[in-house]
């Protein structure tokens, strides 16, 4: 694993791909931050709901009033894409935060306590990891009922074991170090040793790696929304915008690509968002593990 020091930052700065990733992610972060100015909602309306102008089911192409066109039922795609950036950050960071927190606590406990506690906790991670993550997430959302927060719970529930294992491995090596033995000899309690001496030395890499997984997590959340298990209809959510475009891939008789914007606009948003995180993540992993070239 790597240390967060000036040298690491210099290496990140000199890596063009990671810089590009950083620029893309910052662009989305600014979009999310300034969403109320970029796409103001009407007075009193929930800004996350895409405004609907008219009731025609047919999508309308980009125009002066709807920069990116409208989806079926006349939902404004521009508004959806802008506020969708907020949804993406909210879901992505929310899921990563919960799963990392749970992972650190349980993984730290397993590694530190060892013995039966370790065995039991690791068998639980085995069970959760027995599913492709999207399958278990689909099952959990099916039981909880659709909704954005439920998607977040489901995805956090399937992603914590990976972090728990990572933290456990680190804790296992760190607890053998001399300064831990020294702390024990000085009479420090278990809580103090685990939280003051061991975890601070093992969690930073995990947090960095995990935060770089945000792109992948947002992709899975968008997939669940696409499958109709996420946010309610009309909510600004990229996955849902794409689900709406499914009925319009055929176009009209003379023009097969008549409704291209319904797929391409939100699709481009998800793609760039994920690409940005992946570019950053790749650079970090190269630095963390130089062996891989």
């Amino acid at each position: 694993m790597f240390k967060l020091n000036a040298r690491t930052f210099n290496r990140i700065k000199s890596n063009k791909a990671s810089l590009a990733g950083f620029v893309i992610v910052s662009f989305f972060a600014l979009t999310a931050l300034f969403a109320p100015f970029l796409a103001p909602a009407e007075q009193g309306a929930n800004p996350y709901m895409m405004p609907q102008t008219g009731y025609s089911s047919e999508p309308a192409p980009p125009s002066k009033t709807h920069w990116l066109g409208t989806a079926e039922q006349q939902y404004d795609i521009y508004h959806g894409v802008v506020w969708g950036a907020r949804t993406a950050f909210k879901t992505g960071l929310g899921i990563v935060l919960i799963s990392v927190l749970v992972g650190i606590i349980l993984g730290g406990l397993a590694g530190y306590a060892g013995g039966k506690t370790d065995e039991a906790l690791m068998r639980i991670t085995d069970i959760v990891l027995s599913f492709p993550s999207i399958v278990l997430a689909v099952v959990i959302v099916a039981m909880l009922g659709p909704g954005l927060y439920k998607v977040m719970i489901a995805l956090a529930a399937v992603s914590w074991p990976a972090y728990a294992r990572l933290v456990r491995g680190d804790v296992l090596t760190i607890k053998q170090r001399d300064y831990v033995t020294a702390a024990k000899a000085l009479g420090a309690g278990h809580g103090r040793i685990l939280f003051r001496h061991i975890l601070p030395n093992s969690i930073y890499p995990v947090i960095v790696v995990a935060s770089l997984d945000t792109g992948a997590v947002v992709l899975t959340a968008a997939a669940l929304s696409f499958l109709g298990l996420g946010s309610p209809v009309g909510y600004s959510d990229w996955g849902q915008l794409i689900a709406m475009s499914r009925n319009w891939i055929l176009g009209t008789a003379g023009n097969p690509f008549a409704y291209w914007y319904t797929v391409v606009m939100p699709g481009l948003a998800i793609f760039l968002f994920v690409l940005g995180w992946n570019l950053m993540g790749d650079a970090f992993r190269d630095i963390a593990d130089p062996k891989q070239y």
Partner: protein
Amino acid sequence: MLKFILRRTALLPLVMLGVTFLLFSLTQILSPEMRASLYIKDPRQLDSIAQIIKEHGLNDPLLIQYGRWLKRLSRGELGYSETANMPVTSAIKAYLPATLELAVATIIPVLFLGIWLGAMSAVRKDKLTDHLLRAGSITCYSMPVFVLGLVLLMIFYGKLGWFSPGRYSMDTDFIVNGDPFRHFTGLLTVDALLNRNWTVFWDAAKHLILPAATLCIGSAALMIRVMRSSMLEELGKDYVRTARAKGLSEWRVIYLHAGKNAIIPVITIASLQFVRLLGGVVIIETVFDFPGIGRWGVSAAQQLDIPGVLGFSLMTAMLFVAGNMVADILYAWADPRIRYQ
């Protein structure tokens, strides 16, 4: 080696037991009325739900209910799936072959492209080809499969009319479900070959191409990266230098010496990728309206068809666990150091 395999398989029943317990506990989120549907074999029973709750003790403590459910499970009684319109066991039998066929059709080009392009990227490290391949693979890797699938459908179905969604077209439907067509394996392309029916074979293959290509693009990107780094590692080793010093042709050195060893991690990653496709099919089958277990599982989840959801997830977990085990064994076979950990 045998000892490793035995040790690895010994854990399997325990993990599967845990999986069933986790899934059953998840169903407890639902009200007893909803869970009653697990015990319905026939849609006509829907009127007597209160009776079913009492009869099956759906308000009993979790462990007692779980024990009872497990007993039914061991007898192969998984309930009736409303989305599939048939018992869960028949639904699995009907849908699983389609998914396996799609997964096989995906992994073959993934392996081929991954090994070929990955090796090329490594050999031309830091040249233009390498940069293009690396940029291309991270682009493909970041592409959401559902967006890619819809765009491909737009082009190849909407514009060009070459491929269409589904597993076979209407005309083929008559032949496949007709009398003389015999179903040996459930894999439509294989069955068509065994029946020597070229129309069906061509039609089935045509319906596989687009979803397989969509899934392949993301997986191949990952494979290229694995092959590249593995090949780079091998190319830096002493035996490669020896081979070069002996005056062997560059082609022999790269493909017969380094390539042979570089493929080992790729094969194991490929077996993992094959298992991971089980997650990918969930989305892709929905996009392409391909009647596999993924599409069934999703529609079951959308319509709260609990027996369907449980059957689908149990089946997937079983395949996933078994597949991961095979990957582990393959890995240990390729690299003896793993066996003695």
